[in-house]
C-alpha cells in the first residue's frame, strides 16, 4: 500500500471542513492506513491550522514558507513534488484551490488523477474503485484508477461527512527545511473581495431563486413579482449571473453567497453541487423544474414538475388573491 497524504486547506488559522472529510475518505480507501496531513502556510495561522489538523490526523507535516502566506497553487505544487514520495496517494478537496493544484500535480508526480470524486468503493489490489458524476449530476459513473504509480484524488466538498470522531492527538513535525525552492512564474497579488449588492440575500428568510429555467432576461420581472407577493427576496444560480441578468451579489453557491433562509424556492434550477453548497441551515426547499430528472428533486422537500414560467404567475396570482 502506498502512503496516503491529505492536503489540508485552511484559512485564518482554522482548517476547512474538508480537512475532516479527507480523513473520512482516506479510511474508505484503507481503514487501517496511517494518513499524513500536509499543512502549508506561515506564522501563527499555520500553527493554528496544524493544531486543527492534529485533531484529525495522527501525523501532521508542517511547512512554514513565508512566501506561502497565501496558497499559490503553483508554488504548493512545486513544494509537494519536492517533499512527497513519487508513488504517494494524495487526497485534496475539489474546490477552487484543488482544481488549480491537482491536475498539474498528478503530471509532475507521474501519477493518476481522478477529480471530483463523490464515492470510494475501496481497493482491488492497486486499482481504486470510485464514483463520479457527469452531466451536472444527471449521470453517475463507476470509475477505476490504477494507483500503482501513485494517485492524486480530489473529493467533492460536503460528500464524505465526518462523524463524531475522537481527537486524533496527532504529532506535528516541522518539515519546513525540506520544502526546497518553490519559486514559480506566477505571483499572487491580492484577493479582491466580492462587491456588496443592493440587497443582502444572506439575511433573507425566504428566497425566490431562479436558474436557467427563467429562459430570458425579461422574465426576471415575473420572479420579482412573485417575490414581492411572498415578501421574499430574489436570488439566482450561476448562469443568470453569467448572462448578466442579475448582479453577482444575488448568486447562491460556492462561488457566490452562502444563504441560510427558512424557505428556499428553487425555480428552474437543476441543483448542481456548487449551487447546493451555498444553501445552509436546512431550509424548507421547494423545487420547480420541468425536467423530472433534475438533481434538485433529490434534495428538495417538495417538488413540482412544471415550467416555472407557468408556475410563477399562477402562484403570484393566488397570493394576491
Amino acid at each position: 500500500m502506498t502512503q496516503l497524504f491529505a492536503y489540508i486547506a485552511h484559512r485564518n488559522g482554522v482548517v476547512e471542513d474538508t480537512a475532516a472529510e479527507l480523513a473520512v475518505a482516506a479510511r474508505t480507501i484503507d481503514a487501517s492506513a496511517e494518513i499524513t496531513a500536509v499543512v502549508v502556510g506561515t506564522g501563527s495561522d499555520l500553527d493554528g491550522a496544524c493544531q486543527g489538523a492534529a485533531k484529525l490526523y495522527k501525523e501532521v507535516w508542517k511547512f512554514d514558507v513565508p512566501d506561502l502566506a497565501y496558497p499559490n497553487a503553483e508554488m504548493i505544487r512545486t513544494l509537494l513534488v519536492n517533499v512527497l514520495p513519487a508513488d504517494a496517494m494524495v487526497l485534496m478537496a475539489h474546490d477552487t484551490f484543488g482544481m488549480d493544484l491537482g491536475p498539474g500535480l498528478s503530471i509532475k508526480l507521474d501519477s493518476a488523477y481522478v477529480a471530483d470524486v463523490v464515492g470510494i468503493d475501496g481497493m482491488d489490489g492497486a486499482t481504486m474503485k470510485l464514483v463520479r458524476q457527469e452531466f451536472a449530476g444527471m449521470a453517475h459513473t463507476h470509475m477505476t484508477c490504477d494507483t500503482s504509480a501513485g494517485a492524486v484524488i480530489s473529493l467533492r466538498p460536503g460528500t464524505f461527512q465526518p462523524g463524531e470522531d475522537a481527537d486524533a492527538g496527532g504529532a506535528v513535525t516541522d518539515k519546513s527545511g525540506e520544502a526546497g525552492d518553490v519559486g514559480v512564474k506566477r505571483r499572487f497579488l491580492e484577493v479582491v473581495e466580492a462587491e456588496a449588492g443592493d440587497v443582502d440575500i444572506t439575511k433573507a428568510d425566504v428566497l425566490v431563486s431562479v436558474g436557467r429555467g427563467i429562459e430570458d432576461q425579461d422574465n426576471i420581472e415575473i420572479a420579482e413579482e412573485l417575490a414581492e407577493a411572498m415578501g421574499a427576496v430574489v436570488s439566482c444560480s450561476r448562469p443568470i449571473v453569467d448572462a448578466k441578468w442579475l448582479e453577482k451579489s444575488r448568486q447562491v453557491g460556492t462561488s457566490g453567497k452562502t444563504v441560510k433562509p427558512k424557505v428556499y424556492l428553487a425555480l428552474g434550477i437543476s441543483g448542481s453541487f456548487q449551487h447546493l453548497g451555498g444553501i445552509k441551515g436546512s431550509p424548507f426547499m421547494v423545487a420547480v423544474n420541468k425536467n423530472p430528472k433534475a438533481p434538485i428533486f433529490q434534495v428538495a422537500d417538495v417538488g413540482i414538475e412544471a415550467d416555472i414560467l407557468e408556475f410563477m404567475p399562477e402562484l403570484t396570482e393566488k397570493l394576491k388573491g
Partner: protein
Amino acid sequence: MDILVCVKRVPDTAENEIEIKGDGTDIERDDLVYSVNEWDNYATEEAIQIRDDKGGTVTVVTVGDEEAEEVLRRQMAMGADNGILLSDDAFEDTDGRGIASILKAEVEKGKYDLILTGAQADDGAAQVGGMLAAMLDLPYAALVNKIEVIDDKKIKVGREIEGGNQELNEIELPCVLSIQTGINEPRYVGIRGIRKVASVEIPTHGTGDLGLDAGSVGASAAKVKRVDYFTPEMGAGAEMLEGSMDEMVEKLIDMLKAKGGLK
C-alpha cells in the same frame, strides 16, 4: 499575441435530458443535441477579444472524431483564424491525461503565447488545462475570470475563488489558463456566419503527424477508466405534488404558510 484555444464537442445539458442506456455502457446518444462546451465558448471569445485588442492570431483545436469539426467551424465563425482537428482511431477512449498529451504534441508544432481551455466540461473533470501546462512546463491558473495583458512577457489574471471573491495573479507568458464562465459575453453566431467559414480547410492531425506512439494514447494507456454509467439508489427525494397547476399551487401555499414562507 498568438493564442491557442482548446475546445470540445459535448452533449448540451441545457438542451437534453441525459438517459443512461439499459446496459450502462453509455448514455443514450442517438437524439442528443451537441454543442461546443460552454466554458470553451467563453475561452474562444476571450481569445478573440485579446487578438482584436493586441493583434495576433486565434487558433482553435479539438480532439475528437470528424463530427467535432463542426465546433471548430462554429468557433471560426465567431472569429477564430484557424482550426485544427486532432483525430485518429487510436485516440478512442483516451483519458484526460492522454488528451493533454495529444494537445501537447500539437502545441509543440506551433508557437503560442497563450493557451486557453474551458475550466471544465459537463462530461469532464476540469483537468486537461492543468495537465497540459505541467507537461509543457508552463505556468498555469485555473478558473480565470479576468485577463489583463500587461506586456508581451506577462499578464494579470483574476481567478474565481470561493464566496464570489477574486484572486489576482501576475503570470509570465507563455502560459496556460482555464477560463471560467462569465468572464465575457460570448458573441452570437448565426447560420450565415457558419456558412462563411464552411469551405475553409481544417487540417486533421493524427498520431503520425503529431509524432505520438499509438500505445501512449487510447484505452490501453488510460490509468483512469469509466466502468459504467449507473443510476444510484437515492433517498425518497422530494414529495412531488400532483394534480393540475391550480391544485398544486393551492397545496404549496398551504405548505408555505405552515413553514413561514409567506408574510
